[in-house]
């Protein structure tokens, strides 16, 4: 096991714990926005796609990479916009602004 792989394993395990702990108590109301947001975040594969598309390694790599960049960008852009829109809709009434949030 080389050192880099080892450190990667730590990073992976720890990030997994963080994901688990953060999500553990989310209320059902937020399940859908959360799904939508994590979906948009999973567009982070864009980062890998950019390298494939721009490193000029081979035609195959450039073509696949460009398609991948396109697909991932759609995911990221659309995903964040719609999540924002959805959450923007959760607003409170103007009449009782001092109330604690309901639902």
């Amino acid at each position: 096991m080389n050192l880099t792989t080892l450190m990667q394993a730590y990073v992976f395990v720890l990030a997994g714990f963080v994901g688990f702990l953060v999500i553990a108590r989310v209320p059902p109301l937020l399940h859908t926005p959360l799904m939508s947001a994590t979906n948009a975040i999973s567009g982070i594969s864009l980062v890998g796609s950019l390298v494939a598309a721009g490193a000029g390694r081979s035609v195959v790599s450039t073509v696949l990479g460009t398609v991948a960049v396109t697909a991932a960008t759609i995911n990221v852009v659309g995903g964040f916009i719609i999540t924002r829109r959805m959450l923007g809709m959760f607003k409170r009434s103007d009449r009782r602004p001092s109330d604690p949030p309901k639902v």
Partner: protein
Amino acid sequence: MREALVQASYLLASVLFILSLKSLSRADTAARGVDLAVAGMAIAIVGTLMQQTIIDYRWIALGLGVGTVVGIPLGTRVPMTAMPQRIAIALTFGASAATLVGIAEYHDHRETLALGQRVAVAFEVMLGSLTVAGSFVAAGKLQEVLPSRPLTYRGQNAVNFGLLAVILVILGAVVAGKGGMPMFYGLVALAFIAGISLVLPIGGADMPVVVALLNSYSGLASAATGFAISNNVLLVSGALDGTSGFLLSMLMSKAMNRSFTNVLFGAFGSQTQTAAVGAGSDLVATPISAEDAAVQLAYASNVVVVPGYGMAVAQAQHQVRELAELIEKRGGEVRYAIHPVAGRMPGHMNVLLAEANIPYDKLYDMDEINGDLSRADVALVIGANDVVNPAARTDPTSPIYGMPILNVDEAKSVIVLKRGMSVGFAGIDNMLFYQPRTRMLFGDAKASLVKLVTEIKAL
């Protein structure tokens, strides 16, 4: 120096993603969570573009441009009611990016990849390809392009397990460096087929759970990419997505009173087909005219609206708001009782009512309002069925027995808006409709609401 900046940007992006998820798990900070994620994504992209390995920006610009042009309408135009299929489609895009990157990586570096990297790339394309196909099928089912009922045949589970076994063997071969590109493409293709074959037998209504799970796979595919190309931000956000998606799908099935394995392998949702309908066949539900219902609502001082899947189907949320405003203008109080699994995805009703500009402090969780329903003059049930079925409390033989429900049967009077006497998702009859205090206003929910509004205005 440049490399240090790249790495610092990745660390910052990772932290922002974590903070984003943390904010997203609370209602009052959720919107800020999206901003944090956007910031993280932007920083990660800029960081990547600064990398020395990137020498040609033309194709990148093309991809980013096309993606943005396509992505914006997908974000702004899609109606809220189409959220589940929208998420499934987006997942297809995200996972195909991961898969394509994996293929490119293997194509270019096949000869030089270390064992660990082969493991990573193999997992990447397997999970990615499975997710692409699976989420595409899920989207089709949710949009009802594909039949949303479970497509089953005898021996299905055996076939699926066989398929998975073959995939694992091929995965082993790829990891061992055997078979070259053909073997690798075989892995991609079979994983694709498995994605289709695993999702087809699952009913449309269970798709949200499946989508969350596929999201988790897609996260793991990203994490595998991170291992393969030693990229930490991929590793961190992939792991975050992987665990949070998995946990979310478990939380969802729990909210639906179902076990997780039952969702995935239970010939699942097929109970919709089999459960008997005619339990109350000798009972008669009492209809009511829109005119009478309007009078009852107009003079009620305490109205509780119970929305369900039918309201989503009829797209009636705006008419609901209009009606509520009329009642309020006449001095009545209108509250909304939200069951956690009303509709077909978690938070479905919240999103729809929010879209119609109904303030969310009028929305009450099941637990908050259940004790109070007996004080309601009228409970107005709009296209809800299972979530108000008293059998969950009273009938141990019912498939929904034990699921917590809204105790609408305790209200002083009940008006139910639905098209006929059809069953809901669980496929069972509902004694609430035959109760002496219940009146049925038959018809499409939107049409009925329009009539009610007109009648009340005319009073």
